[in-house]
């Protein structure tokens, strides 16, 4: 299985470094939550790691040729775009592209991967519906299914649960945790620190382009980090139901 290694990754936009000197090594089996306030550089870090942005430093994924990288890593952008009224099945099937030769048609393996992804996101009943006719949250799930159908050992997701109803937020986090337990590496940018604390095995905290904390959720979500990076005070507790995290108020 494949992990992800970044060394001294830096992305500049004009004179300003949007991501600065980030080095880390992520292993298969981890569900990594990438957290940080708006503008911290979470999206930029993931896009640069994939090689979608010009950058300095090294990324083990960006080094690969485009086609090979697409078999190693699936990317779920924050912008949920579905340009044409194609069927849900067709859209999810786009995830199989990297596995097909230039003129090869989808085969049994591909159909099975699409069916499994639809089933996992509870979308089998929607398979024949036009993707553009679904609600925003349903479209988000279809796009997650597309990324799963890619069956890549690494999944990078940018705010995958934003806009989902509470039950589907938990279901999606559970799916990501299961994928990690199966031996894949999942990296998700998240704003819901409570769900991040409950499901992620590791958190990366970013502030103004830099990686300022990296470790187990309870360590990263320390009172000091929360106050300094997010300007928040929160209630954090270990309960019989697992860790509970509730932001309480904004601190100066």
């Amino acid at each position: 299985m494949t992990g992800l290694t970044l060394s001294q990754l830096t992305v500049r936009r004009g004179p300003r470094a949007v991501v600065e000197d980030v080095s880390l090594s992520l292993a298969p089996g981890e569900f990594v939550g990438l957290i940080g306030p708006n503008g911290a550089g979470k999206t930029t870090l993931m896009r640069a790691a994939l090689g979608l942005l010009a950058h300095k430093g090294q990324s083990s994924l960006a080094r690969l040729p485009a086609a090979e990288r697409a078999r190693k890593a699936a990317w779920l952008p924050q912008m949920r775009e579905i340009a044409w009224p194609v069927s849900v099945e067709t859209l999810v099937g786009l995830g199989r592209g990297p596995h097909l030769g230039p003129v090869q048609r989808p085969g049994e393996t591909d159909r099975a991967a699409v069916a499994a992804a639809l089933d996992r996101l509870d979308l089998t009943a929607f398979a024949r519906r036009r993707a553009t006719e679904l609600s925003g949250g349903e479209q988000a799930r279809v796009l997650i299914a597309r990324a799963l159908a890619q069956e890549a050992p690494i999944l990078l997701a940018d705010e995958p649960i934003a806009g989902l109803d509470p039950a589907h937020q938990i279901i999606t986090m559970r799916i990501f945790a299961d994928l990690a337990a199966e031996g894949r590496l999942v990296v998700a940018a998240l704003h819901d620190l409570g769900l991040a604390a409950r499901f992620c095995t590791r958190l990366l905290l970013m502030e103004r382009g830099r990686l300022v904390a990296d470790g187990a959720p309870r360590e990263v979500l320390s009172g000091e980090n929360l106050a300094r990076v997010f300007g928040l005070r929160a209630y954090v507790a270990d309960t019989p139901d697992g860790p509970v995290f509730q932001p309480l108020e904004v601190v100066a």
Partner: protein
Amino acid sequence: MSYRALIWALALLVAALFAASLLVGPASLSLSDSLGALIAGRGEAAVLVMREIRLPRAILGVLIGTSLGLSGAALQGYLRNPLAEPGLIGISSAAALGAVIALQTGLAAAHALALPGMALGGALVAVAILILLAGPRGGAFTLILAGIALSALAASLTSLVLNLSPNPYAAADIVFWMMGSLADRSFTHVWLALPLTLAGWALLGGLGRGLDALTLGEDAAAALGVRLARLRLMLVLGVAAAVGAGVAVAGAIGFVGLIVPHLLRPLVGARPGRLLFASALGGAALLLAADISVRLILPDRDLKLGVLTAILGAPLFLHLIYRTRAEAGA
């Protein structure tokens, strides 16, 4: 209807219209005379009409219609916008400008190939500017802006040529040429357009997988292994070659590249890759049908093909917009 059935139906339609195109014209030939002349070479005048007038006209109809349908589908897929059409990126206007200069300077009258040659030159200049402006780092948006600017520039220069034209006959020539027509074209035109047209088809035909992936947006497509800069380059070169060659021999024919992908999109499940081939056949069928109609509606008035496609296309387009609005529940 399955995709395979649709392709067969469209292919049969093109074949039927191609045959009909060979049988319609001012020279009233019977069916047996026509076929005898075309295949066996019986009857001197009939052979001339069939092999030198009607056959090249029908072949050009297929070539140009296919180019327009294919280019329209490819551009709509790339820009993820159903309003895109081959004229959008400025190739047609630039080719028309080249042709207009050839007509105005009298080069067109001096040499048969001067007009199409200058038109191709215009298309080439346009491609160079487009690639320079919307180069490897530019996205879809840059391409649209560059195309609009280029169209506007070429159109203004065309107006300038007309404006300064000292000779009303030359001006009339230019205006009629710009309307677009397949009348009185010969095999010289076919051989001129064919290589570039086929090259353009080859470039555009290979874009299906990438255009499908673009349904998810540029970022997701790039992460799926689609090389966007290469795709954009193939698209621009393909449209330029196919449409540029078409404009060079027939003038600018509008609406085919806009309407055909629109009509066929629901029949291919809206998949941009499948739409390419269907739209290519649909474009050929529509252009052949329109070219037959101009000969039937006003046989002795030389109704221009481009005028007819616009007259038919615009209301059809309005109807499509109305239907889309109804579907959106507005």
